[in-house]
């Protein structure tokens, strides 16, 4: 294999790594939601916590991103919003990933 092909492959790997990092950052920014005047991140930890607490409680407290306690009085609605936003962002991330897979990265 000649060196130009290796360089091309290295460049593609680098481009893919940068694009993935940017796409992930974009997903993280989009995962933030405001619910009843408080800021949350629709990440796996929040989703799992809300789902776990919801199993045994009709209302409960969680911390927002600035560590303020927030009473959740509508766990079903809140969980639904979290999941919807989480999947919206990961779907977009997946599409970016697919673009690079097609390029051979």
């Amino acid at each position: 294999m000649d060196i130009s092909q290796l360089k091309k492959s290295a460049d593609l790997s680098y481009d893919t790594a940068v694009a993935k990092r940017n796409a992930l950052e974009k997903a993280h920014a989009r995962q933030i939601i405001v619910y009843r005047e408080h800021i949350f991140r629709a990440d796996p930890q929040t989703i799992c916590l809300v789902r776990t607490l919801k199993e045994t409680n009709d209302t409960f407290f969680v911390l927002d991103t600035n560590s303020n306690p927030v009473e959740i009085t509508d766990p079903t609605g809140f969980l639904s919003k979290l999941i919807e936003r989480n999947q919206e962002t990961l779907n977009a991330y997946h599409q970016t990933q697919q673009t690079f897979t097609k390029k051979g990265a």
Partner: protein
Amino acid sequence: MSRGVLLFCFDTEHTRYHRLLEKCVHLIGKNLELPITVITDHDTFNKIKPLGFINYKFIEPERGNTKMGKSWNNADRHMAYELSPYDTTLVMDIDYFCFTDNLLQFMDTGHDFLIPDQAHDLTDRENLQHRKWSMVPMVWATVFIFKKGEKSRMIFEMIKYIKKHYSYFNKLYRIFSSNLRNDYVFAIALQQLGGFVGYDKFPFALSTLPPDCEIVEMTDNGIAWKHNDQINFIEQQDVHVLNKEVADV
């Protein structure tokens, strides 16, 4: 409760900031749909093309500050509280381009003041970690939201105090650059007023294109840039562009 965006725009002999304003306003109208007030001077205003229903307020900018040897009229941000006609105000640099509606939801939080303290380098070189250039945890005054009230009023009073005595605070916090940077002024004010403990922040990093990135295209959805002979792009993500030549794209 009124809500809106406050922008500062002053042309200099080197940079046609009004061209940035035109792009910035277009994207705010498309993605945030909030009323806009522009703080400017008459010379700049005369060059701005018609932008629709925009509220203009005229001031004479404080001059004398520089960045990389060029004039930099950035010293009026401390007056945002008095200049804003809104109850909840989103203040943005005009080189911050909203390709999403992500910021809109923060207009409805219970927080009096929100500002980001992280930046994400879109070229993945991590060269925006400014913590090592001072003794104060950095914030990015590129974008912030405040609600009018006692807490925000005190924050701006503190900002004015820090700005007035900036040469002292610049040395106290061992800030590498001696010119006035709002990022440091705001960071010091928030740290001092917060009792050196903490303050509320946006939980995201500002996606930023460093100054050495040449902007090759900008559309309503995103931006493409050239760096090290490589062209890259991002869509549906708000971007802070440090290369002011974006005005000519």
